[in-house]
């Protein structure tokens, strides 16, 4: 195991922006692949809306965007200085 001195100088794979971009591109590809798979596979759905094309994909995306935007609004209402209770 290198000691911390060596690590200071070491550059890591993730330090290069090109590699971060590469990861994001892989994510895009995976998402595209899953969306394509959705159209090809016959689905066994319990609820009718589950059968809508790409339901889970849209739902996941919309849920997260909605969650973050709502949380930003909530923050305005609820955020206080860190030492509020002290």
């Amino acid at each position, binding site marked *: 195991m290198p000691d911390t001195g060596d690590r200071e100088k070491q550059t890591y794979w993730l330090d290069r922006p090109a590699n971060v971009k590469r990861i994001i591109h892989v994510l895009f590809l995976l998402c595209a692949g*899953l969306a394509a798979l959705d159209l090809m596979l016959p689905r066994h759905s319990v609820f009718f809306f589950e059968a809508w094309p790409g339901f889970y994909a849209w739902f*996941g995306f919309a849920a997260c965007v909605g969650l973050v935007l709502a*949380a930003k609004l909530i923050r305005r209402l*609820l955020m206080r200085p860190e030492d509020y209770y*002290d």
Partner: protein
Amino acid sequence: MIDAMTPAAIFFLGALLTPFLRTWPRRILLLIVPVIGLWQLFALSPVNAGYIDFLDYRLITLRIDTLSLVFGAIFHIAAFIVALYSLHVRDTMQHVAMLVTAGAAIGAVLAGDLITLFVFWELTAIASVFLIWARRTGRSYAAGMRYLLIQMGSGLLLLFGAIMLARETGSVEFRQMQLGSIATWAIFLGFGIKCAFPLLHNWLQDAYPEATVTGTVVLGSFTTKLAIYALARGFAGESLLIPIGALMTAFPIFYAVIENDLRRVLAYSLNNQLGFMVVGIGLGTEMAINGAVAHAVNNILFKGLLFMSIGAVLLRTGTAKGSELGGLYKSMPWTTAFCLVGAASISAFPLFAGFVSKGMILAAAADEGHWFVWLVLLFASAGVFHHSGIKIPYFAFFAHDRGIRCREAPLNMLAAMGITAALCILIGVYPAVLYGMLPYAVTYVPYTVDHVVSQMQLLLFSALAFTLLMRSGIYPPELRAANLDIDWIYRRMVPRYAVIIGRVYGAVAALISNAGNAMIRQVLNVVYQVHGPQGVLARTPPIGIALLWVAVLLAATLLLYYL
């Protein structure tokens, strides 16, 4: 009666011995106690034993059936893991508190009646508060006090309910109950506090992040899961639990997104995970109960793993705040890897633990036709991935490098995290190990093309959303802040208005006492008239009168005698 000794007693014996041992002997003791306890648990199973006749009631201190066995077993495994995780700690108080908390939780799930349950229920609260106080700061002292008061309140409700129930039914046996009487409502509420129902939840997020590095892992493993067991035993199929649980899965994730202290993020996330279990218990079908129990077991593992990894970060860097951390994968690669396994497990990625248990609860909700609850759970699943799956590892170990260079976590911590990570993957890959322990036979098949594909779509498109929000700068930054929650009422509002409340109380009290004084004065006047110096009963009659009366009585007696 050693052959029917509750495994809890082994933990208490261990706790008694702990202060007398140092270094390796103590470490061996801490590790061996859960092993002996687990062996004893399986050696006894199944059993109903330890009868104590108390007044008119029969207490069963040891009941091992399918439901208590699975909770008892996972509590032992958790006790072993937290013992390993805290081996490097040199603090007798924490080691003793850890053993007593684990033992009390085990004693509680093995209790066959409500009185025994109450005793262990309170003991978990009293023992575990020392894990908060062991941080030895003013903040942790205050947070511990609040925690203790609320936990004791939960226990008192349980005791009150148990006594009322005993009067109604003549039995204190802990079995399935129906909401309806004051007794069962009190018990339900007592369980609900410990289970962190909405509005009763805030002790959890308040206290857990204030505990020590190892203390938070202990707290997160036992207390709330004991409440899940109690609900599954007492209120399975109670439909009120479905909306309560659904609400629990949803509201904490908003807080988790904006919270800065990563251990507090995990506490909100724990609240959300409990919601899934509560929904499962409320549905009450065999698959739903199986799902709730399986998720409780998995949650102890992956939530423990996440608490352990962030605990290691806190130990090495001195902070667990997202705003201060970043880039730690360079210094703590192993901890990073274990955290990612925990993150994948709680997010329910295929091949990780959460996938095989959470799916059961969603499938059970769908089977029962609860489409709205199902959608809420799906939203919460995306939300879990968002804050526990991405936010926790991202802000601690990646994000932008803040130049923190520290050592990797101690070896014992890495070993504890490694074992837990291995268990998360084992259960994910080979769910039969978990399914074989569940209370009912499992018909659910987790690995279908549908389930895998739909789950991967949900997760990866959530990740896509996170990435786009992050790159576009819309994602809210981690800020040093406190966020108001329900604890504001008892931490700010009540103290702030205490003066006003005090004055109102004083005025009302004065009125009441004035009225009371007037009444008392009247009563005293009457008493004074009768008993006072001039009163009838206070006069000292001369001796002659007494003699006269004696003579009269004598005459009367004689007269009666002759008649």
